């Protein structure tokens, strides 16, 4: 790495390529319309990247706002009677603001960042190339799914944002009407059927977002089934493809249940029907069954593709064949299936029957088995490997830490008696941030830094990105580990205030969140710097062997010059490090021999 590599792009054999003639997908067509109406999976992936990272920024800003509000216990607390009416009114407004802010943070992060991020950005970009295909099976559907996302997402943010702005500038309600949402991202009835905030519009927004997810899932399933090279069997696919496949199964089978749930909720609010509303004889626990039948698989929609990324990175950066390929592949599908039969563990204290509590408690614990299979196989992959601590590997190792903590506390919570005690406390908050945010965000960052050179044809600053990775890891643990302790002491979630004895935990947590935010902004800086000043990336900077590395960086419009033949994604022997290129190159002769041998 210390050598001074060439500053011109090279192909997979280390030969310089003329950037003018390169005709990469980035320069293939010009003009804004060529982006907005593109059917190219790579461009759609990049467009997803822009909007999804923007929602991450929005959700993140509100995370910082919440942590700042919670930094001081007294900020929103009326703990003695000497307040004037005006002060009380102000506190009431603050509390309203807090409710809407945590809803916006949660809902935007869940529906617009965590669920779509990896499949929509990296899946779209990498999946067809990993299969040696020219595009996903249904490119038009892909673009449609993008516009479903943008339409639903913008509407959702607009509705929620209005509510927030109305609390800050009360006069604006005359201008653009009321809005906002204060139900939390879960829309539990009966509160959601009667709240004065704009739940109807917000639910409609999420409904449209759901279609984006369904279309992506349908597309990926068809792509993986029909666009594999004929010599690539199921167990020769890269593990990220397996992860996306398991995800697509869940997207296809679970998201429609969210659609019908939200449709019924809309009918409750607009037509006044009472399937879920106890005031009309409905059953609010039934709503929770409906909601979690989608939303528990959704948790795995968030994490399973991240696990796929980690499987790729573990093998590549240990310079060693992945350990237990078939187990990792099957455990993804296994998680996808078990995901559908554990939803009741969200409802242990909701009045669910004891029988179901016991059943779901048992089933939930069984998810630990496929998850642990993955962890052990990753560790076994690293064992005696030549570990290279590049940025993607740092994130991947961070993932193992965070997911282990998040996963083990999940087993802990699956035990009924413990869950009764810590339900709806910060213990839960810490648990799901470790699993959903920590693991998924680390998976995304690992994947982004792994495929970044391929996506943009530019390398990034290795030193700063490592600093950022370490800061994010430290900041994340500082923010959330302390919440396990606060939660087990009884700090309930979703409260704008707390008694003084919890202050120390909130101080530390808030401090951690600032460090975390700093790290993330450094990542942003590194990426922007890379786009502007980064040196051209070699075709294969990491020496990986899955098919997306068998083409130039950035790839051609049609991905490959010739339809490639399937390779073993975890056999790195054909690639050797080339100082001049600053990446791995393939011996041209071996390549040709291989090719002719296989085509005969």
């Amino acid at each position: 790495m210390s050598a001074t590599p060439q500053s011109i792009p090279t192909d997979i054999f280390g030969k310089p390529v003329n950037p003018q003639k390169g005709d990469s997908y980035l320069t293939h067509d010009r003009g804004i319309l060529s982006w907005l109406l593109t059917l190219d999976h790579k461009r759609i992936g990049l467009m997803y990247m822009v909007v999804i990272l923007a929602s991450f920024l929005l959700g993140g800003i509100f995370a910082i706002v919440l942590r700042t509000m919670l930094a001081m216990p007294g900020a929103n607390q009326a703990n003695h009677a000497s307040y004037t009416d005006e002060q009380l009114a102000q506190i009431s407004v603050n509390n309203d603001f807090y409710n809407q802010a945590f809803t916006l943070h949660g809902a935007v992060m869940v529906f617009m960042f965590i669920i779509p991020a990896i499949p929509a950005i990296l899946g779209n970009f990498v999946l067809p190339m990993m299969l040696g295909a020219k595009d996903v099976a249904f490119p038009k559907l892909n673009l449609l799914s993008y516009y479903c996302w943008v339409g639903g997402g913008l509407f959702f943010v607009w509705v929620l944002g209005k509510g927030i702005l109305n609390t800050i500038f009360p006069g604006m309600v005359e201008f653009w009407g009321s809005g906002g949402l204060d139900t939390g991202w879960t829309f539990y009835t009966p509160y959601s059927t009667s709240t004065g905030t704009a739940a109807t519009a917000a639910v409609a927004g999420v409904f449209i977002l759901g279609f984006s997810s369904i279309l992506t899932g349908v597309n990926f399933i068809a792509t993986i089934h029909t666009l594999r090279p004929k010599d690539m069997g199921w167990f020769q696919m890269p593990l990220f493809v397996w992860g996306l496949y398991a995800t697509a199964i869940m997207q296809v089978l679970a998201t429609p249940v969210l659609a019908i749930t939200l449709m019924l909720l809309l009918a409750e609010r607009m037509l006044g029907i009472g399937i879920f509303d106890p005031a009309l004889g409905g059953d609010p626990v039934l709503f929770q069954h409906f909601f979690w039948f989608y939303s528990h698989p959704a948790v795995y929609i968030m994490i399973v593709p991240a696990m796929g990324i980690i499987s790729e990175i573990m093998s590549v950066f240990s310079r060693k064949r992945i350990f237990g390929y078939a187990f990792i592949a099957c455990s993804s599908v296994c998680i996808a299936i078990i995901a559908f039969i554990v939803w009741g563990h969200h409802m242990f204290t909701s009045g669910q029957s004891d029988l179901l509590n016991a059943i779901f408690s048992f089933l939930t614990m069984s998810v630990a088995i496929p998850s642990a299979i993955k962890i052990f196989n990753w560790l076994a992959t690293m064992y005696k490997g030549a570990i290279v601590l590049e940025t993607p590997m740092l994130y991947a190792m961070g993932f193992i830490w965070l997911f282990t903590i998040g996963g083990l506390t999940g087993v802990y919570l699956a035990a009924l008696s413990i869950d009764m005690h810590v339900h709806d406390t910060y213990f839960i908050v810490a648990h799901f941030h470790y699993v959903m945010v920590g693991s998924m965000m680390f998976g995304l960052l690992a994947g982004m830094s792994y495929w970044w050179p391929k996506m943009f044809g530019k390398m990034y600053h290795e030193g700063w990105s490592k600093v950022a990775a370490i800061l994010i890891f430290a900041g994340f643990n500082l923010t959330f580990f302390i919440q396990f302790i606060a939660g087990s002491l009884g700090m309930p979630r979703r409260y704008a205030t707390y008694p003084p004895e919890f202050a120390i935990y909130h101080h530390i947590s808030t401090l951690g969140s600032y460090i975390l935010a700093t790290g993330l902004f450094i990542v942003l800086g590194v990426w922007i710097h890379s786009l502007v000043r980064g040196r051209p990336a070699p075709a294969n900077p990491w020496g990986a062997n899955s098919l997306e590395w068998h083409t130039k960086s950035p790839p051609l419009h049609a991905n490959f010059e010739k339809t490639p033949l399937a390779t073993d994604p975890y056999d790195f022997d054909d690639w050797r490090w080339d100082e001049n290129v600053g990446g791995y190159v393939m011996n041209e002769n071996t390549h040709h021999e291989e090719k002719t041998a296989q085509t005969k």
Partner: protein
Amino acid sequence: MSTANANHAQHSEDVRQPQLAHHFDTLEQQYSSAKLGMWAFLATEILMFGGLFCAYAVYRGTHPEVFLYAHHFLNTFWGAFNTVVLLASSLTMAWGVRAAQLGNKPLLVLMLLLTLVGGCSFMVVKYIEYSDKWEHVSHHGSGSFSLFAGSRNAFYTEEGEFTDPTAVGQAVRYGESKQHHDEHAIAHTNQAGDLHDAPAKTLEHQSKHATEQGHQIVDATAAKTLDFKSVQTRPMPTDRSDIRRPAPAPQGLSEAFEHIGGIPAPYETLADAGTGHSVVTWEDLDDRQQGLVSQFFQIYFMMTGLHGLHVLIGMGLITWIMIRALRGAFGPSYYTPVDLVGLYWHLVDLIWIFLFPLLYLIH
């Protein structure tokens, strides 16, 4: 399954059929992936209807008498008629796909037209049924199982109704929402009166946490202490036992439906009248069950409504492929859209096959 063939693709580059998209190698590959995608989409449709079937199963499982009583208002004849119509249109659709496969354009257009006619007659019958049902549920107003809104009004319409804390809590929260959302047709009057100020807001926040615990509709204590300061200054306990008070059993539901009267089912028109079966009458239902009769109709309207929407979408799609068929777009080598729309239409039929016995033939 995977039929990609690199060499074949290279050679056939110049003789590619116009229907073949650039990223597929052969029409077979394109056809099989389109079909796979369609089946995956149909799976989402099944899961979506599955949600409604779940609501149906839960309410039927817990209140069989209510369903038994209420289904008598549905007309079995029209239901069976519609079943036959849909089955026949499925037959013509399948026939149409066969015609497309064999390249018989006039037959294809005829079959699509017949399918369309089937869809239209289904919707006409649905319209007749809906207007009949609508008359039932809207004309009797609060005197019977009014379908929408009526029962909620039980909580809010008459002053002095707020005898239990549940109702007060509901009213407080409702009053709050009423301020912002007058357009909601949930209720017509709001007697929460002077609860409309800041205390209501805080109470709402307080009670919300409680509602999320489950059946505990509203924290009874909080509802009674409407004094703002006393609510606010309640010290935040670190001991969970105070936060998580044992939830009281849900209350007030039976009272809520108390004044809802009943009308007898029109047994004269029943298909099984005179067969000597024991039939459930309005008087056989207890108060709460009488209140739940509207649940059946809500589920009925949601299920058949969503199904009807699918019929309409299917009719639109059939019109579209009929126009394309008239222009000669399909032949033995390319009939994917006909096949996919056919699959969609059969799914609509499939859903109805389950809806008919479950809604019309409850026994």
